[in-house]
């Protein structure tokens, strides 16, 4: 408040103070006067944006008017049966391999952090091996496992009793080999992500859980991992999106994923650029879908950290009040 005479103060009544007064006088119920100021103009931003838009338009036009691209073919192939089957295989490989990767990775991370030296050594050895050899080689080895072990045998090694056996090539087809190669490799990488998440959780959380009488597994599952998820999800989203494209490696074992199918097509019709664009459009679309999913997952696991918690808390309070109302009525 600017210093003013007592009369001036009392005479203000309900009228807003003339200028500059941010706060209402003591005991008064005046609304604060908003600060009117001209914001700093960022002319550089406008210029930068204009340049970027200009370049984008130029690029799109250069594609649209390019005589070397036949847009009809892109439209034609975008929803062709061959493409859609490829999209399906790519999605299927990604989802199943990531599922194996995440479950296996979590297991490996917990094992590696375990006090049990046997478990942590197994996890360490697994990660060392599967991270240390090319995923392409791993896919090929699974695909040609039959050359090494023609028969898969369920029994006790060395001593001999056999309970069941089957021909390797009949059990591990191209898809299975792809999934095994991609999934088991991913587990090794995911293990390190999950481990990073787990060790990012404050040690006090574990102590609090232990002091309440919770066991190791319970503490990990319901206290540590849910908090670790906040840290794990962004890089795990990265891994998933990366897997979407890495899955194209199954082309070496006659997989039928998106990129492989389109490559086969352009090997015959030579519309290389068009079909690669089709592939890009689909990969971008799938990546967008995954990013949206990741956004919601992140929102869920940052409960207690984010800003929208008040909302959720109110909904909970309401639900509980409702429940109590019902149980009271019965």
């Amino acid at each position: 408040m600017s210093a003013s005479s007592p009369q001036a103060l009392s005479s203000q009544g309900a009228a807003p103070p003339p200028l500059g007064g941010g706060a209402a006088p003591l005991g008064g119920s005046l609304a604060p006067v908003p600060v009117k100021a001209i914001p700093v103009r960022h002319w550089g931003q406008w210029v930068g944006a204009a340049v970027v838009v200009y370049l984008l338009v130029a690029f799109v036009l250069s594609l649209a008017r390019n005589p070397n691209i036949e847009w009809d073919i892109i439209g034609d192939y975008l929803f062709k049966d061959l493409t859609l089957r490829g999209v399906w295989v790519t999605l299927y490989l990604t989802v199943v391999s990531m599922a194996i990767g995440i479950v296996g990775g979590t297991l490996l991370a917990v094992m590696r952090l375990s006090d049990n030296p046997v478990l942590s050594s197994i996890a360490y050895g697994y990660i060392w091996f599967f991270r240390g050899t090319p995923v392409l080689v791993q896919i090929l080895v699974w695909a040609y496992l039959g050359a090494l072990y023609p028969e898969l045998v369920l029994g006790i090694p060395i001593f001999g009793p056999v309970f069941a056996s089957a021909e390797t090539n009949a059990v591990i087809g191209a898809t299975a080999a792809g999934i095994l190669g991609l999934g088991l490799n991913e587990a090794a990488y995911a293990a390190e992500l999950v481990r990073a998440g787990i060790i990012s959780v404050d040690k006090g959380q574990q102590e609090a859980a232990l002091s309440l009488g919770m066991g190791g597994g319970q503490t990990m599952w319901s206290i540590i991992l849910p908090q670790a998820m906040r840290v794990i999800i962004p890089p795990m989203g990265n891994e998933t999106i990366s897997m979407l494209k890495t899955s194209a490696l199954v082309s070496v074992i006659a997989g039928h994923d998106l990129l492989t199918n389109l490559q086969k097509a352009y090997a015959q019709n030579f519309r290389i650029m068009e079909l690669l664009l089709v592939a890009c459009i689909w990969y971008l679309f799938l990546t967008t879908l995954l990013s949206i999913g990741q956004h919601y997952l992140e929102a869920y696991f940052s409960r207690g950290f984010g800003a929208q918690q008040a909302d959720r808390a109110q909904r909970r309070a309401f639900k509980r009040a409702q429940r109590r109302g019902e149980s009271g009525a019965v």
Partner: protein
Amino acid sequence: MAQSDPALQPRCDMKGHPRTDEPMVHVDGVWKRFGKLEVLKGVDLVVFPGETYVLLGPSGGGKSTMLRCINHLEKIDGGRLWVDGELMGYRQKGDVLHELKVKEVAKQRSKIGMVFQRFNLFPHMTALENVMKAPVSVAGMSRQKAENEALALLDRVGLADKVDVYPGQLSGGQQQRVAIARALAMHPKLMLFDEPTSALDPELVGEVLEVMKQLAHDGMTMVVVTHEIGFAKEAADGVALLDGGVVVECGPPNDVLVNPQEERTKVFLSKVLS
């Protein structure tokens, strides 16, 4: 609350102790090392049911370590430690100690509540969920019953209007009161407080101490590590001064805090009270 009968006053060990009932905490010559560093060098401590015992002493004197040994968050390297008549973390057969399994230790811990300096509430759970968690998943209580008890406990620590709020939205004092409610939810026989007010803004210390005094008044057995001399004078039955890994002096607060006998106690008190 200090006992008026001098024969019943708290002591450091069981030698010639007039009380014949089972002590809640019995620490007998406990040693603890971290590598080469000896943190506890033969500590004796006896806390009887219903007593509030305050551990005082300079930083690094072994107070917090002593507390963490009581619920076996730290393994002891020597001596014996019983809670409610049970040897913590071990089973004794003849002269041989056998380590207990993780589950058995967890069972022992579930009867001992602990409150931490930095609260350690579960940030992804609301206040209510924090308090309900252990009764439901450790004690196997039904959700409905656990919820009712949790609501009553949160009401008792003065947070009935904060049940659906996440810890991140609460002040330090409120978080610590939720943490006390969470520990009480398991119906512990003993409560351990590890510097419960040290991480709080000065104006929030009072509300937490108030809840603790009420607990002490209600007859809870408590071992409290704190620098709040006022709390010790007002609410403690016994006070022990730990320095250099040993109990320098112990007894009722009126003796130890008002008329200390040991030089180290005098030095410590003069530093704290100045």
